[in-house]
């Protein structure tokens, strides 16, 4: 359908629209007009994504004189695919109505691992080896060598992409990752570099949060995005965590050992050059180098050339070929010093000495028996006094290493991750004085008998990483189904939204049924509170709850636990007591594990079990990967059971440090933040059941603590408004009864458009009939 919002004609690819989608668009348009930032909370299951895409693309179509780019950030690759699929529906619709002028280019961007089509490279196990495998074939020096020596292999896809030069463009259209790969295969062009290239020209770019928030990645990928862009962070309830993770590094024993190995390898490489430089060639070794393709045709004075370049103040030699790009500086662009590398590390050998001393110092610090917490300033001071490395030198560590690796023409970068981590650490600790702390823990609190020292530099201030984004781009939209309390986010992220709103959901029928279960079938309270969680009675009550539900609820059931270890424990107990066997008689059981491949396959099987009518239960973990981004809509999830309140591990030193920082800086109370954080996770978990108003699902919060007002009130309003007082303090048998009633009610046919006084679905005519004014009133 097609309708006006003030001066913009909005093209919406469906015949009907929800009223809240319409008001969402109005708010969004206000934000775009004001060129400001906004914060919008809209319940899941109301078509946020399509409303967003629809308005922003229509907005930019209506203003052809000032084209606007949409940068759409998702948390996961599968969400990226979903978004692009929705965009494709929209794009087809717009082309149908507007003709070729509506054509846009929309691409998804991911890592080499997900885009590479070279069979030998992509066969590698993980992302890092794919990256390294690609560099081995495409690095500028490898290609230069290949021109002289035909034995050196290059990547045919990259070569033909390079050959096509400026002719290598993507025709307009919407490209998911899969389609990018297909296009690349067909043309024989490398899809990864093609996509990287096309990012500058695309109207819509969909990629992961980190491509914008993590300075290491943003520095190379998002450098050239124009100011006139709209940045959307979808499902942004965890955005503060992404921000602080982007600036946090930890160092462990293995890291230091690996770094030491890396350093000796680098020094071997340097010696080789020096050896060339000073003595000429050793015949046999020369042959050997030719064999392994290590021989560099240029004069061996590149180290000298690098030194000269560094003296001139250039950290990296001007414009690097796209293939030589490495991860960028871990510090934020504004904080990187624009000056020459300090003299004491300009020479490769000297730099290596500095790094050796640093590694030695860090390993000394790891040998502690007590937990140590220090501010970065103090840490730098002690490095300076013990290892003789000053702050400025630390700050340049990353760039200097990068330059050295390039100079040494090292392609197997996956081998050098450890030293890279050390340099990241050094640069960050040297750059930031506040908002961070360094924490050394000799062992994990939960396993005190196993020594596992770790040194963590953790960022506490989410606003640091996101600040450049707010500063740089015209509009930033932060949206999710759970942003309650909505006034907290501007404080955490330190920005001033022009619009900040929370929408409720107008339902045709009560298609969600939240319940708080406080007691088991034996009327004893259930909870995952630390002192209760391992009580056999509680475990049994949870098992009985699931068992009863499994026999009543059709199709899919999802069950979230508070942590992996708790889930493992409880499943083992259920297995021993036979409850699991009984559950299996009703439904198949699938479990999220730490192994993503296995979890993905389990999910796939879970969906097939729901599709074929067998029905299944999926055990998952709050804060896990599944909870973050997999939908359990329609028959894939008729019931979600949230077992326990997913609090963070409150004894974690990092968390404590962050809480302290939040209290001191933003006056946010510890308890409030913890509850807020736990409840947003819980809401996120249960919110995955519903996708549209035709869908329905139940949510059981199984913990006595949910019945307390201070916990419950932190839930988003769209859940709270359906949580009836009668459902606040249930036992298993009562919940079972309610579930039966609810399912029976939902199975009846109903009028999708809602009753006449409260429209929940609007058609084209109704949209035209209703003026803007009345629409506004209706949706509030």
């Amino acid at each position: 359908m097609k309708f006006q919002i003030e001066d913009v004609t909005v093209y919406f690819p469906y015949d009907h629209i929800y009223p809240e989608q319409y008001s969402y668009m109005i708010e969004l348009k206000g934000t775009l007009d004001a060129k400001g930032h906004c914060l919008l909370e809209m319940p899941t299951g109301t078509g946020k994504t399509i409303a967003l895409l629809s308005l922003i693309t229509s907005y930019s179509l209506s203003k052809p004189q000032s084209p606007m780019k949409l940068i759409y950030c998702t948390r996961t690759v599968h969400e990226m695919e979903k978004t692009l699929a929705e965009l494709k529906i929209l794009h087809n619709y717009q082309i149908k109505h507007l003709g070729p002028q509506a054509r846009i280019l929309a691409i998804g961007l991911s890592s080499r691992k997900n885009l590479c089509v070279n069979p030998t490279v992509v066969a590698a196990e993980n992302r890092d080896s794919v990256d390294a495998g690609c560099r081995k074939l495409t690095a500028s020096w490898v290609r230069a060598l290949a021109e002289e020596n035909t034995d050196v292999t290059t990547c045919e896809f990259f070569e033909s992409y390079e050959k096509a030069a400026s002719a290598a463009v993507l025709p307009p259209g919407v490209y998911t990752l899969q389609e990018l790969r297909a296009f690349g295969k067909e043309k024989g062009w490398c899809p990864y570099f093609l996509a990287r290239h096309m990012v500058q020209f695309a109207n819509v770019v969909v990629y992961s949060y980190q491509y914008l928030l993590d300075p290491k990645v943003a520095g190379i990928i998002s450098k050239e995005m124009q100011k006139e862009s709209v940045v959307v962070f979808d499902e942004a309830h965890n955005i503060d965590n992404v921000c602080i993770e982007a600036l946090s590094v930890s160092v462990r024993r293995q890291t230091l050992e690996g770094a030491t190995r890396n350093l000796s390898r680098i020094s071997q490489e340097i010696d080789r050059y020096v050896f060339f430089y000073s003595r000429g060639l050793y015949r046999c070794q020369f042959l050997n180098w030719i064999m392994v393709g290590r021989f560099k045709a240029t004069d061996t004075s590149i180290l000298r050339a690098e030194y000269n370049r560094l003296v001139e103040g250039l950290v990296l030699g001007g414009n690097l070929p796209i293939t030589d790009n490495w991860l960028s500086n871990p510090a934020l662009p504004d904080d990187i010093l624009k000056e020459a590398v300090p003299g004491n590390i300009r020479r490769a050998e000297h730099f290596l000495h500095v790094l050796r001393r640093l590694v030695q110092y860090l390993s000394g610090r790891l040998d502690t028996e007590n937990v140590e917490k220090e501010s970065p300033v103090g840490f730098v001071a002690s490095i300076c006094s013990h290892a003789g490395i000053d702050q400025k030198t630390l700050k340049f560590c990353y760039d200097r290493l990068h330059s050295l690796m390039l100079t040494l023409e090292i392609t197997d970068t996956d081998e050098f991750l450890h030293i890279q981590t050390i340099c990241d650490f050094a640069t960050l600790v040297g750059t930031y004085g506040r908002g961070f702390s360094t924490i050394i823990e000799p062992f994990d609190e939960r396993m005190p008998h196993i020594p596992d020292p770790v040194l963590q530099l953790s960022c506490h201030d989410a606003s640091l990483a996101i600040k450049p984004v707010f500063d740089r781009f015209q509009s930033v939209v932060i949206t999710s189904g759970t942003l309650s309390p909505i006034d907290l986010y501007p404080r955490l992220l330190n920005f001033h939204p022009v619009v900040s709103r929370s929408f409720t959901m107008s339902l045709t029928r009560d298609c969600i049924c939240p319940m708080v279960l406080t007691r088991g079938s034996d009327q004893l309270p259930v909870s995952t509170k630390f002192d209760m969680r391992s009580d056999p009675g509680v475990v049994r009550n949870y098992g009985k709850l699931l068992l009863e539900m499994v026999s009543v609820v059709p199709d899919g059931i999802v069950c979230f636990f508070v942590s992996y270890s708790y889930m493992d424990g409880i499943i083992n107990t259920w297995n021993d007591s036979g409850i699991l066997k009984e559950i299996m008689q009703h439904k198949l059981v699938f479990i999220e594990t730490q192994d993503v491949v296995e979890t993905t396959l389990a999910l796939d099987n879970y969906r097939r079990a729901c599709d074929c009518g067998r029905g299944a239960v999926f055990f998952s973990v709050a804060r896990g990967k599944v909870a973050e981004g997999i939908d359990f809509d329609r028959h894939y999830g008729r019931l979600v059971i949230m077992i326990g309140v997913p609090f963070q591990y409150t004894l974690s030193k990092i968390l404590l440090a962050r809480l302290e920082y939040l209290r001191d800086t933003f006056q946010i109370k510890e308890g409030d933040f913890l509850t807020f954080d736990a409840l947003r996770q819980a809401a996120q978990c249960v919110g995955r059941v519903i996708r549209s108003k035709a869908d329905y699902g139940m949510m059981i919060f199984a913990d006595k603590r949910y019945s307390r007002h201070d916990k419950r009130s932190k839930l988003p309003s769209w859940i709270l408004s359906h949580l009836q007082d009668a459902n606040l303090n249930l036992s298993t048998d009562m919940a079972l009864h309610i579930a039966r009633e609810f399912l029976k009610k939902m199975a009846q046919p109903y009028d999708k458009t809602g009753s006449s006084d409260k429209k929940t679905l609007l058609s084209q005519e109704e949209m035209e009939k209703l003026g803007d004014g009345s629409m506004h009133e209706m949706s509030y």
Partner: protein
Amino acid sequence: MASTHVTKRAKYKTTIKDPGTPGTLRMTFEKILFVPHNPKSAGKLDVEFRYIKGKKHTKEGSNKPPWLNLTNNQNGSFIFEFENYSDLQECRDFVGKVLAKGGEVSEKPTVAYPDEQLSAAEMELRIKLLQEDSELQKLHKQFVLSGVLTETEFWATRKKLLDREASKKTKQRLGFKSAMISDIKPSTDGRTNKVTFNLTPEVILQIFAEKPAVHRAFLSYVPNKMSERTFWTKYFRAEYLHSTKNSIAAAAEAAEDEELAVFLKQDDILASEARKKIRRVDPTLDMEADEGDDYTHLPDHGILREGSKEMTESQNELYKRSLSQDINRHAAVVLEGRAVDVELEDTKAVAEALAQSKQKSSNKGESDGDTSRERLDRLSRMTEIEDLQGPNTLPLAPLCIKDPRDYFDSQQANALRSSGDALGEIEQIKCGLSTQEVYGSLRESISSIKAMGLKEPIVKPEVAHQVFDALTNSISNTKYHIGKNPQESVLDRLPRKTKEELLHHWTSILELLKHFWASYPITTTYLYVKVNRLKDAMSNIYPQLEALDAAIQHYEASMQKRSAQSGERPNGYV
């Protein structure tokens, strides 16, 4: 015909060789009386009919004299020689009639309820059929309960219904049990530490399916390298080690025993299968792709999360297998279903059959490698928001067509609603084409097929659907319009109840007629009795029909009168 007795001259013979005693044979419903002409001869006979079991007679045209041979229940026989065949016939018929009558009493327990031996399942099936189809139930009530037809007769003409249901049942393959393999608990003798496992081929098949490595090991080790008994002993030893969750002990034992290590190690076949499968999963689920995108999974970047530590544990990891893995694997296998169809008896056979079926499925997997399109379709279907979109699929009638009338009536409604105008379009297109154009397009499509081969759906689903629609439309048209059109039938002008009654009579008459004609030629007394019963039932209905007929005539007359009065004329009436 309906005479109560027959009297004929005949000769009575005690044996075939006996020349016979001439006399008069008199048969009534009760008894057979033979009085010889010569009162002194000893051939006098007085037998009650209930002792007579059967009759044989010579055929007309054969060179034998017209004999009637009645056998009694002591295997004795009475032979009568008649003067001519017509006498014989008359007597034969009479005997037949009487015997049949007697049979009705005596045979009932054996013939009328042969279905007492029916299995409970069959009985249930019949009851289910009756419950599902009210019309059938009505017929059943009318004929079987009132005794016109027996239960067997009624169902004999509906074998198809029974068969289909039955065959459906047998065809369904059993899946795996929902219980896990680890639930196999050993039995102990209570005195020693020895435990005994009871393995059925069923369980073994499940083990093989869930643990391909064990399957492979079985194929290569048994019986060349070790006996089946040792094999399973080792297997359960390994399972025991797993259950102790002591990965160090497991590693130690594995180091000593190469074969045991096979069971203890992570299943490498599973791992490679997983890698293959992961390429085919729905992209909206693919968390592995996430991993590839995730920069914070660079070692030691980001904040340590719970659990990330376990990734870097010692090499004993190799011998560690979690319960979750087992559960996932079990559920996947159960979901996949059982591929092997063989009668499970021999373990070796089980193993080989499974290997074969795997080979087949992997071949298939390679051949239909291009599932990406299907995945994309699925994805786009999933992305659509269902209630914002208009109804996507046409309303479908349920697949099970018990009563064609229901089906066609509902299809008619659909067809009228949706495809009315579409049909018009098709006809227009057809009309607009000249012969040349048709020929040209045919040639074109043939050459394109030659060049590119057949495309996957030879007929586009939309086209097929349209054709199908048009066909149902025209078929249902005739059915539906019967009675709609006043010129064709009067049925629909009747009140609803009468119409239903009429239809019911119609079906019941059909049922009776079917049975009636099926009984001819009457070769047994049983059939004879049946036909009689049918005739009675039909004659019961007939007067009702006449009454209906009269009613209809009366109705028509009054309608005509009324229309003539109001001056309205029915359609088409000039």
